[in-house]
């Protein structure tokens, strides 16, 4: 155990002595968060919606059909009450609920005006904004066409309400994404590079010849990065809270536990990469292209997964950050508990097991 502690100390020294490493570790999260504070606009397609129609008359059915047949939306369910909006959004499928008031057609005929409520899940602010705008455009298109035929024009007034993120802060979607990106980068890249460095320097040989067990070497390498990544996760949450007013509605303990799980997953991935890579450069290259790009592009961090080509959607399913981002969004913005994120958690645990198993197998072959 004493040997092991000495080993971990040495690892910390490596990190603290290297300015570049320190910069990547602690400069990057802040820079990323600020850079990604911009809004990115995208198209939407096949967004699942629910309709709560209290009139069920000609006009509401016409409007509903027009919305559903537009290609942008899919009807997920017809609601019969609207008591539990939060719960519907927390399930995660439905992104928008459209509510028609009672006696819609009658009101329109008598008063020439009626209201439609649009409720959107704005934990993904960017997408929510798009969804509401598209819906409004369809409704106003309907209105225009109908008004051409009548002498007394009527008006349908859509009222939009954003759930979970009333102010439509786009930074809300970037905090979870940045968290995934940073943890992935720091954990996987740093460990893979630091193990590859020992191989390159020849010190790995000396370590393997020493009484230290291979498991001790690997765990010793990993522990400093677990600690530092965890500190990073806390920094991002704190920064999000105080600088961008990003709430943590759910349990902080659960959020930190899930972060720790994701860190472990990223580290096991880093170890796996280092068993393949012979030099620091190769390790860095693999980490950058195999981890960074997919994390940014395919995890739903910036571009909605629903709108990707089918092949890329399939690919996104094997991207660990995707599940972590879902978990973080759910906990931070929707305030749900473990019972809502256990599936994603299980997937992350499974992925971690696979990488650990692969690394052990690779490591053994190399030793032979």
């Amino acid at each position, binding site marked *: 155990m004493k*040997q092991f502690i000495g080993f971990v100390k*040495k690892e910390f*020294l490596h990190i603290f*002595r290297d300015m570049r490493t320190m910069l990547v570790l602690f400069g990057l999260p802040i820079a990323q968060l600020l850079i990604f504070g911009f809004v990115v606009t995208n198209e939407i397609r096949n967004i699942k919606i629910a309709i709560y129609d209290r009139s069920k008359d000609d006009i509401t059915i016409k409007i509903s059909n027009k919305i559903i047949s537009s290609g942008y939306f899919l009807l997920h369910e017809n609601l019969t009450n609207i008591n539990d909006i939060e719960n519907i959004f927390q399930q995660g499928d439905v992104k928008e609920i459209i509510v028609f008031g009672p006696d819609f057609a009658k009101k329109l005929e008598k008063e020439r005006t009626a209201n439609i409520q649009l409720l959107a899940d704005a934990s993904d602010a960017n997408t929510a904004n798009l969804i509401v705008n598209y819906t409004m455009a369809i409704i106003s298109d309907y209105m225009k066409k109908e008004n051409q035929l009548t002498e007394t024009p009527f008006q349908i007034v859509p009222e939009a309400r954003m759930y979970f993120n009333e102010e439509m802060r786009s930074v809300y979607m970037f905090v979870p994404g940045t968290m995934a990106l940073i943890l992935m980068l720091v954990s996987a890249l740093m460990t893979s590079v630091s193990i590859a460095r020992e191989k390159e320097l*020849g010190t790995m040989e*000396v370590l393997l*010849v*020493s009484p*230290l067990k291979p498991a001790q070497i690997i765990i010793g390498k990993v522990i400093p990065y677990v600690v530092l990544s965890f500190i990073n996760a806390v920094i991002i949450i704190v920064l999000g809270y105080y600088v961008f007013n990003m709430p943590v509605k759910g349990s902080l303990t659960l959020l930190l536990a899930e972060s720790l799980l994701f860190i472990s997953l990223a580290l096991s991935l880093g170890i796996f990469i280092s068993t393949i890579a012979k030099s620091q450069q190769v390790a860095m290259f693999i980490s950058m292209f195999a981890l960074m790009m997919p994390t940014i592009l395919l995890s739903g961090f910036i571009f909605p997964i629903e709108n990707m080509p089918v092949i890329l959607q399939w690919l996104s399913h094997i991207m660990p950050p995707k599940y972590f981002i879902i978990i973080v969004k759910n906990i931070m913005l929707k305030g749900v508990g473990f019972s809502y994120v256990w599936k994603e958690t299980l997937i992350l645990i499974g992925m971690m097991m696979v990488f650990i198993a692969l690394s052990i197998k690779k490591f053994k072959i190399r030793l*032979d």
Partner: protein
Amino acid sequence: MNKTPIIQVKNLVKKFGNFIANDNLTFDVYKGEIFGFLGANGAGKTTAIRILSGLSAPTSGKVKVAGYDVYRQTEQIKKNIGYMSQKFSLYEDLTIRENIRFYAGIYGLSRKVINERTDELLSKLNITNLGDKLISSLPLGWKQKLAFSIAIFHKPEIVFLDEPTGGVDPITRRQFWDMIYDAANESITIFVTTHYMDEAEYCDRVSIMVDGRIEALDSPEGLKNTYKAKNIDEVFLKLARTPIGEVGRG
């Protein structure tokens, strides 16, 4: 010199698929001797060292190192050996003292022993005032001497030196061999691979590997007499003249 064998190798075979890296090696290394292990690149030296240091298991054969069996007792073997490679294996971003503390620490030496021996070592190398300097600021020769001192810091029974003098100037090489003699006098067994043939002359006994087999094993004098050569270089060329399959394979 007493003739207690400290490394015993009998019919050692190591295969990688169809490729035979070590073909039926049999030799003993005696306690306190300087044993030279010569061979072209790819002759199987590194494979043999890896087996002797417990990194890799033989395909067949009997191998005992420091009295322990390489199949079952690699833990004990690792505690009793030291190792230094051509790369010198020091951490450039740590100071001399930190490197010593780290390596001595993983061999389980107590803090007190480490501090005592560190002071002893620094004054022996005449670098008492450099203890807190980073390794990266030292010249190559110093790094090499330090790497060797650290490899024997825990007073192992045997130290394996894998081409320890690569890329070092002749004067430093000479000084380095003085350190090797000192260690041998403290009855540490030295197992050294090299491709500098003049260095082979410094060894007590030399084995020459060709294509995975040991072609000759004797004292430098004995080898020169047997093969009627002026120096080991000639002996080596005579033995290695039989075409070597793949030259340059690591």
